[in-house]
């Protein structure tokens, strides 16, 4: 039984059962990151230093410390008791903690218990993710025939990207159907993606319960050859530890930065640097993912014929060469100076101003004015200018409109913003403004024209194509490096350091490098400078990979 090759149908079930669980774990991990702004508002109030510390711990520690730690804990467990029960356990932990995050009341309701609970649950998520991937990849690889190992394991590789797709899709769907205000309220729609996780996890657990143990692990166990101390054998024995280091520096480190740049840095850059609006920036990523995902399987399958090494190296080379031109193009395409404004001024529209009265101090009002600039290509750039006004006497929300007499004598009329469903009677209340903010906050949001939108989809697609080149074959590559009895432990740690640490730091270090370039004459700095981090790490990994790695496919992973 142990060494009998499986039929395509049998492999299909194994892939499906393994992949669904892994996909859900990625989904669970991503939704927290994608909803970080709302979570921060609900659980980590801005005006508290302690809360900011807890927030930092939740974001940084979960990815950078707990993920590799989870790789060690569950990797060891997987090599001691088996793959099946270990990745069942990681799934239960991940699903349970995700669902529980959706149930924690906000800071307003339960105070400090809220951020502490969320922090603990987020750390459990990081721990579980650290154990999941190695188990699923090992499990599938240990079932797959040698000549198709790249092909079959590449299905597992699609899950990280599809998990992102699922998370993005569900969040956009709920946000669009509810509206922003309801979505972001304490018990609003942002919690639904967390609750949906429970359903997905239950289905996945039922499927995984029907799976049998990996035949290779079962064989090793039956022969009494299970490792007594997987951690010591993986990292304490020089002959294996040198392979762990080679896997990390020669492949996974470069793969991690290519992956995070192509999917996460791209979205962040498009939204925060190019100022493309929430929906457009996410739709760009969603569509690019949809078209690029099949290439994980294509490159995984190709690696069975030409070897793993050069496909991964090519992905790194292409990223190194093209990242700066691609991101420069993003900037050029969205720069107002490169567009022609419609001369017909009726097309440049100002929305009515909105005044929000401060709940505690009714002499303080936030006045927001929005105006759209329309361009000949169809793009619309919306500027929201928010000014803090200090009034001579308190303003009351007794009528629908207010007219503010500014210190210079100008008058601005606005709607008064009220709580949802409250309708004020018509009328104008006059107020004299004693002073207003020296620098009003200006937010720019760009709705793209069709040409730019699809151009950006293409450029993100190209970057995800690089991701598929480095990530598609890597499960098979890692599995083939290590012996069965310590495989789970040995491959999990470099994978999670490469992805969680090197990849996960792309946004943070990217921002830090941009800070270096800020000068008095150029206070904004060089927005492309942040790319030097992924490019530098990819170059280092490429050199090590090219010089040290073999392009050999290991036919026998049964030893």
């Amino acid at each position, binding site marked *: 039984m142990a060494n009998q090759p499986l039929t395509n149908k049998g492999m299909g079930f194994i892939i499906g059962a393994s992949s669904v669980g892994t996909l859900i774990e990625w989904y669970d991990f991503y939704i927290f990151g994608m909803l970080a702004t709302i979570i921060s508002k609900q659980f980590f109030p801005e005006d508290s*230093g302690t809360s900011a*510390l807890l927030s930092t711990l939740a974001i*940084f520690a979960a990815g950078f410390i707990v993920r590799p730690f989870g790789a060690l804990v569950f990797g060891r467990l997987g090599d001691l008791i088996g793959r099946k029960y270990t990745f069942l356990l990681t799934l239960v932990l991940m699903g349970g903690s995700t669902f529980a995050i959706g149930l924690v009341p906000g800071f307003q309701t339960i105070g400090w218990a809220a951020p502490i609970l969320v922090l603990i649950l987020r750390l459990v998520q990081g721990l579980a993710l650290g154990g999941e991937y190695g188990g699923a990849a090992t499990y599938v690889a240990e079932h797959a025939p040698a000549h198709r190992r790249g092909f079959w394991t590449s299905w597992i590789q699609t899950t990280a990207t599809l998990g992102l797709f699922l998370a993005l899709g569900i969040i956009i769907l709920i946000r669009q159907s509810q509206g922003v205000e309801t979505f972001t309220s304490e018990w609003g729609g942002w919690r639904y993606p967390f609750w949906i996780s429970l359903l997905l996890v239950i289905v996945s657990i039922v499927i995984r319960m029907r799976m049998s143990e990996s035949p290779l692990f079962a064989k090793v166990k039956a022969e009494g050859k299970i490792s007594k101390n997987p951690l010591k054998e993986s990292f304490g024995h020089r002959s294996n530890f040198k392979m762990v280091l080679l896997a990390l520096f020669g492949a996974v480190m470069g793969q991690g930065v290519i992956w995070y740049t192509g999917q996460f840095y791209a979205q962040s850059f498009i939204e925060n640097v190019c100022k493309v609006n929430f929906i457009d920036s996410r739709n760009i990523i969603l569509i690019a993912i949809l078209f690029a995902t099949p290439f994980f399987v294509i490159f995984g399958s190709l690696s069975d014929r030409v070897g793993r090494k050069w496909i991964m190296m090519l992905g790194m080379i292409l990223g190194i060469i093209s990242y700066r031109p691609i991101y420069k193009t993003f900037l050029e395409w969205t720069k107002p100076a490169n567009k022609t404004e419609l001369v017909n001024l009726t097309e440049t529209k100002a929305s009515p101003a909105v005044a929000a009265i401060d709940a505690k101090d009714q002499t303080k009002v936030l006045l927001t004015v929005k105006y759209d600039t329309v361009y000949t290509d169809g793009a619309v750039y919306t500027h929201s200018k928010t000014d803090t006004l200090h009034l001579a006497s308190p303003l009351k929300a007794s009528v629908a409109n207010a007219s503010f007499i500014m210190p210079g004598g100008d008058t601005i009329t606005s709607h008064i913003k009220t709580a949802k469903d409250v309708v004020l009677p018509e009328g104008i209340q006059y107020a004299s403004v004693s002073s207003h903010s020296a620098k009003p906050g200006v937010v720019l949001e760009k709705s793209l024209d069709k040409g730019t939108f699809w151009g950006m989809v293409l450029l993100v697609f190209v970057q995800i194509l690089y991701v598929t080149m480095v990530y598609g074959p890597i499960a098979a590559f890692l599995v083939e490096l*290590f012996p069965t009895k310590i495989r789970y432990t040995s491959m999990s740690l470099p994978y999670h*350091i490469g992805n969680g640490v090197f990849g996960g730091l792309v946004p943070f270090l990217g921002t830090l490098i941009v800070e270096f370039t800020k000068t008095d004459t150029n206070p904004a700095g060089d927005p492309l400078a942040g790319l030097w981090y992924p490019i530098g790490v990819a170059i280092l990994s490429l050199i090590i990979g090219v010089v040290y790695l073999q392009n050999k496919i290991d036919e026998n992973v049964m030893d």
Partner: protein
Amino acid sequence: MNALKRLLGFVWMALAPLLVAFMFWQAADKISKASEATKSNITLQWAIILFIFIPVCIGLMIFGYYSVKGLYDHLPESSAEITD
């Protein structure tokens, strides 16, 4: 190729402490420039980064050392070779 592997080993051994020194310099710089309100938070961020990066840099140094010693001249063909 083996000569190149050994030669590059010296580069990795030198690069690792340089990276650690650079990270410490950056941490000290950013923490010293932080406002009172954000200082503890920025200190925590950098403490986490240093905590995880120092072992990784030690790993890079060991990788360089193994390269210089010729441990990567021949990569194992089977798991039987991964025993010591």
